[in-house]
Every structure is written in structure tokens, then in C-alpha cells.
């Protein structure tokens, strides 16, 4: 199946962005959209920074089919997210600052003004075997029901959106907030203004 050029162009743009910004390695990460009641997802081993039209696979939302044979190894997580949440697009990326903070914190509080206003906090979950679809497909959708993204400890981020660009904004926004938090932690100095203290998002 060859997807519409308009769809390929969006995958290509988002894939290049993820790799060029250092949010994925040459072969890591995967991206998908929901379209016409099916999933269009990157093919296994396809390189996000160098996608070809044949690297996109259309497959069923609910059952195994020939598309599942060649789709990304994390197809099961994407399927679970689409079936259990309102996601129209999903990005999985190995964002370094989110991953680094996930190894020392239980949730990433956004202390910068932008992150605080848009995202409030970035949830982190522990998964028994992080890299691989089975366990993540159970745990990730539970969080994405109420949040736009979730970081799997030591592994990477899953973000949903109404479009791939939307999900990309969540990925890059979360990483930006994590980056700022990481840098301030390095200084070991008290914050002059901590946006996260200005409102109580504990129950959000």
C-alpha cells in the first residue's frame, strides 16, 4: 500500500525533526496516525530521518494482518493507545532529558513558564521490561487517557495528538521543560521563581 503524498510529507517532516533535534537515534522511535479507521505507522527498521514512501505501513486498528508483519515493533503500544484514548497520532521518541530525569524522579514538574502553562507536569511510569510492546501497551494508554504524554522510566516518551505535528509539539515541549529542569538541578542553587509552586497541580 502506498499512502497519499500528503500523509508521507507529514511523516517525513516529523521524522526528520525528531532525528535532527537529537530526540531519536538513527533507527529508534516510531510514529503513526489514525486514518480511516486504520493505523498508518512507520515500518520496522525504517529510519525516521530518512523515510521513503514504502516505509509507511497501513494496518488494522484491532487485529493482526499482513501490515503487522512489517510494522514497527511497538505497533502493539500504538494500537492500544488508539483503542483506549482519543489519540489521532502517536509519537514514541527517546528524548534524553526526559529519560535522564525519569531515572531520578517520579514525575517531572514543569518549572518553566511555558511548560507550566501548557503541560503542568510530565507523568513517569515504571514498566517491567520498558523496551518492547507488551508491558508498555498495558501501562501507557492508562496514563494517556488523561495526559498528552508519558515517560517510560529509562526508555522514552509516548505522546498523543490530534495530528502528528500536535504530538510533535508535545514531545518537544516536554523535552524542553525537562531540559530546563535538568539544567537548574545541575546548578544546585535555589530557584528565584518556581512556577510549579504557584499552583497546586497535585490532583491534576
Amino acid at each position, binding site marked *: 500500500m502506498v499512502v497519499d503524498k500528503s500523509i508521507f510529507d507529514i511523516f517525513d517532516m516529523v521524522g526528520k525533526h525528531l532525528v535532527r533535534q537529537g530526540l531519536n537515534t538513527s533507527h529508534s522511535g516510531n510514529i503513526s*496516525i*489514525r*486514518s480511516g479507521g486504520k493505523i498508518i505507522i512507520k515500518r520496522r527498521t525504517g529510519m525516521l530521518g530518512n523515510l521513503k514512501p514504502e516505509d509507511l505501513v497501513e494496518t488494522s486498528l484491532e487485529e493482526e494482518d499482513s501490515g503487522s508483519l512489517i510494522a514497527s515493533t511497538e505497533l502493539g503500544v500504538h494500537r492500544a493507545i488508539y483503542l483506549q484514548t482519543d489519540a*489521532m497520532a502517536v509519537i514514541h521518541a527517546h528524548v534524553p532529558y526526559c529519560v535522564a530525569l525519569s531515572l531520578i524522579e517520579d514525575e517531572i514538574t514543569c518549572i518553566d513558564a511555558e511548560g507550566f502553562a501548557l503541560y503542568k507536569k510530565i507523568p513517569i511510569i515504571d514498566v517491567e521490561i520498558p523496551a518492547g510492546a507488551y508491558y508498555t501497551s498495558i501501562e501507557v494508554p492508562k496514563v494517556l487517557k488523561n495526559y498528552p504524554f508519558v515517560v517510560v522510566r529509562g526508555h522514552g516518551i509516548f505522546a498523543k495528538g*490530534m495530528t502528528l505535528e500536535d504530538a510533535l*509539539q508535545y514531545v518537544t515541549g516536554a523535552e524542553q521543560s525537562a531540559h530546563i529542569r535538568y539544567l537548574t538541578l545541575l546548578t544546585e542553587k535555589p530557584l528565584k521563581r518556581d512556577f510549579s509552586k504557584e*499552583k497546586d497541580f497535585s490532583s491534576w
Partner: protein
Amino acid sequence: MKGMNNSLLEINLSKQEVNDLPLSDEILNDYIGGRGLGVKLFTDRIAPQVDALSPENVMIFTTGPFGGTSIPTNGRFSLVTKSPLTHGIFYSNSGGFFAPVMKKCGFDGILIEGTLKQPGYILINGDEGATIKDASSIWGLDTEQTLRKLKEVEGDKIHVLSIGPAGENLVKIAAIMNDADRAFGRGGVGAVMGSKKLKAIVVKGGSKKTEVNDPELLKKFVKVAMDKIKVVPITRISLPKMGTAALVNVINTLGMLPINNFQKGYDERAAQVSGEAIEKQILQKDEGCFACPIRCGRMTKAGDMEGKGPEYESVWALGPNLGIYDLITVTQANYLCNKLGIDTISCGGSIACGMELQEKGLLKDNDLKFGNAAILKELVKKIAEKEGIGAELSEGSAYLAKKYGTPDSAIHVKGLELPAYDPRGAVGHALGYATSTRGGCHLTGYLASLEIFAAPKKIDRFTIAGKPDLLALKQNQKATEDSLVICAFAGWALGLDYYARLLRAITGIEYDVMELTKIGERIYTLERLFNLREGIGKEADTLPPRFLNEPLKEGFSKDNVVPLQKMLDQYYYVRGWDENGVPKPDKIKQLGIEFS
């Protein structure tokens, strides 16, 4: 369920009976309130093929669990009935102050059936319940006169739903006015009320407070929601400053402002009736519904008349769509529609259709031509009184165009005239028109929000990929929002992730976005099943042929037509409907719907 009174006022006009109808937690959990609750009660009660203007039709006004709390824009409520214009299920939504008072009186809504022998009105008097009173002295009055007269009788602190002469005369595009300046506008619901000889419903007093499970948590979440409304430009600046008419210039620039009955998508004169022009020339002050920080309403003065509006859809329907760019005339025609109780969109749509028929030489009326502002106010009056050409226009554009042998000249879906976005400029929005359960409506899924205003996110307006999926999701979620009940304009800033948290604070029940979406899907599917039973199915999921075959010739939406069939097949598949648009048995079962 916390947040609700678990009680509806049930009134049989024929028997002059007034009862409390208890609402079970089960029905509220499955359908929440507002539109969902109304749709459930309506479909349970009404028999197949009932004439919309007969005593057997039912009208159900309902509020939801957000009503009467501190949640922004919670003052809205729903009406569900059968439409004499579309002959299908019809839900409508209105703001103002009526709903919070109704809820304080102890009722989540009012269910009305039967017909009075003589004109009457319903008085809901605080904790004392409801009575039916004689309305012979106000029958025939316009909605402003009715409000004034009722205030003399019942006191100043009342809120009133009423019909004007149009509703009394069973005009198929008649509205129900809410305190004379807001409306249950569309679908001819005013005629349904008129057919019941019910001139008005009055509420006053009441002392019941909406019970909230965790007031502190609600306060916290409301603060977060208010902050978001204050940072999003549309809710912070555009709507408060220019009202909804702020859209005129935006839509015109995109080449999708319908001109002369959707024959063009751009006219530079549209700026003369824009939000900016209203602000400069006629605005007196802004105005808002109960608990609304956005305040999109406009109190205006046009020539020697004063009133409310015009909103975007009204200024377009009575202006550019008729080739009229005189702001004073358009505003005065809008005031007249409010006074006489007429839906401005369908009024403009029917007149525009008549003008196109005249242009084609089919309708012999030399005055009825595009750009003739001089006849507009007179035409509105004739429609309300069903006088001369007004009698034909009062039946709606589908009737009119069919009568003159060119059904394609009526710009409608399922009998309801289309609002102010040319579907050739936004294909997802176009699919929304075609598949809306209430007919040609922009609010049912409102993909224009994403395709045009990038709110909350931008999606390409001409790409079809993913649109059926996104539209189905948004239609479901809108059905939920209409059931909570919250204003669509809050949706520019907020969304179901906010609403799920607010509902959790009110009810103590752990809702998430998908559960709320599923409730919306249940409501939408039930509406579809009702329409199918009434004979409204796949053949009605379409658009006027010009949108499928004739591209616009100029502007930023030119050379495009709507690729409807491809999107429609996918849409049915996404929804779990068969190729004829009929929900499959396993989908009905999965949603827990019982309907036959």
C-alpha cells in the same frame, strides 16, 4: 448523581397535569444531562413517525451537572424535540440565565407533551413547583413585549422562554427566544412550541444549591480553567472585543464566506458588516450569559432601534449571503428576527434561495433580488405573518426550491439551512455538515475550529486523511459537552481533559476523556438510530450538489470541491456503521443502547 437534582418537571398540556419525574443514577451515568439526557428521554417516549407539530411531539429542556456551579459558561441548557423542518431528532442549545434558576427550583429539566386548548404559559415558581396559566393576553405579542408583560405580572426577577408571532403561526423556521435576546434558534422549534399553544415558560426564585462532591477540588480546577480562558487569544481578546462577528473578516479572507446563496466565497464589502465595523459603529456594550468570563454578546444600537447582536451567523445570513452590506439594515433585520421569533440563519438561507430563484427567472418577484436591502425588514415580517411571498419562505429553502423545480438551489442538509462556512474551504467541516444528526449545522463536530482557527491545533483544511476519524471523535465529544452542559466557545480554550476533571470534582466519580467520549458516542448513535427509524439515512448524508461539483472561482478556497463519498465511506467504517450508514448490532450492544 451529585451535581444533579435527579428530578425533571413533567408536564402534560392536554391533561393539564404537572408531575415530578425522578431520574435514576443509571440514566444520568449513561447520558449525563443536557443533550444526552434529553435524547434518551425523548427517544424512549416518542412513537415512530409522529408529526412534529402534533400533540404527540415532546419537548425536553435539560441542564447538566455543570449548571449552577462556578464552572465558566455553565449557564447553557439543551432542548431536544422533533423538528418540523428536518423531520428528525433536533437538539438545540441556549445560554442566558434561565437554566441556573430552573435548577435552583429543583429541576434538571422540563418535559412537555400534549397541547393546550387555549394559549397558556408555564410558571415555575421557586420551590412551589409549576402551574399552567392563561396566556390569552400575551398571545400575538412579540418576544420583547411578552417579556415586559410577564414581568408586570410575575415580577422583575423572572427569566422567560417565549415564542413570537412566527412560532404562533407555525412558521417552520421559528425560534424560541430566551429572555427575548438569546435563542433556541434552529430547526423550527418555535413552531413546535406554537403547536402546543404554549406562549412562554417562566422561572423565578428557587433555593436549591447544586451539590458538589469536593468543593475545594472544584475550586482548584475552575481556577486552572479560568486561567486557560484568560491566556487563549480567542477567549481572551477576540470574542470579548468583537463578539462572534470577529469571524467575518477571517472567513472572508480564506475565501469561504458564502456570498449570494453560496455562489461566491469572497467579497471585499464584507468588511462593512464585520466585527470591527460593529465595534466602531453600533456597539453599546458587551454582554454575557450566567457565569461567563468571555462575554461574546453585543448590545447594540442601529438607527432608531436597539437590541442584541448581530452574531456572526446572523450578520452573514442577513447580510453577505443576500448581497447586503448595510450594517444598520442587517442589524435591524436581526432585531426583528429576535422580536418575531425567527431563526436568523434559516431566515437568511430561505431568502437567499428565493433570490437565486428570482435570478434564474423562476420566481417572479422583482424586489426579491440580491443586494436589495430595502425589502429585508419587510420580508422578515412577512415570514413571521406568513404573508405573500413570506408564506413560501416560512417553509424553509428546501420546500421553496423544490416548489420552483430546482431543489439544488436550496443550500441545506436534511432540510436545515447551512451556516456561514462554505464547505469547499474546509473538507472535514464539510463532512460534518453532511453527517450531522440535526442537519446543516456547524457545531455538531466543528472541525472548522481546527481547520480554520487552529484551535487548539492547526490541521490542513483541504487534506482528507484522518478527517473522518477526527470528525467522529469531535462529534462524540461535542455531544458530551452538550450534556455537561458548557458553552461551545469555552471549547476554544478548554477540552474534555478539563471537563473530565471538573466532572470528577462535582460527582466524585473517576471520569476520563475516553469514558466521556464513549458517552458522547452513545448519544450520537442513538440520535442516528432515531433518524433511521424516521426514514432519514444514508441518502440524507450529503451536501448540495454545488459543493460536490462546482469549485469556487476566486479567493483562497478556489478550485476545490468536497470529496464527500470517499470521506463518507471511511466515516461509516470508523463509526462501526455498515455501508448504508446503519450502526452494526455489535456497536449498538457495545454502547449499551436499547432502541427500537
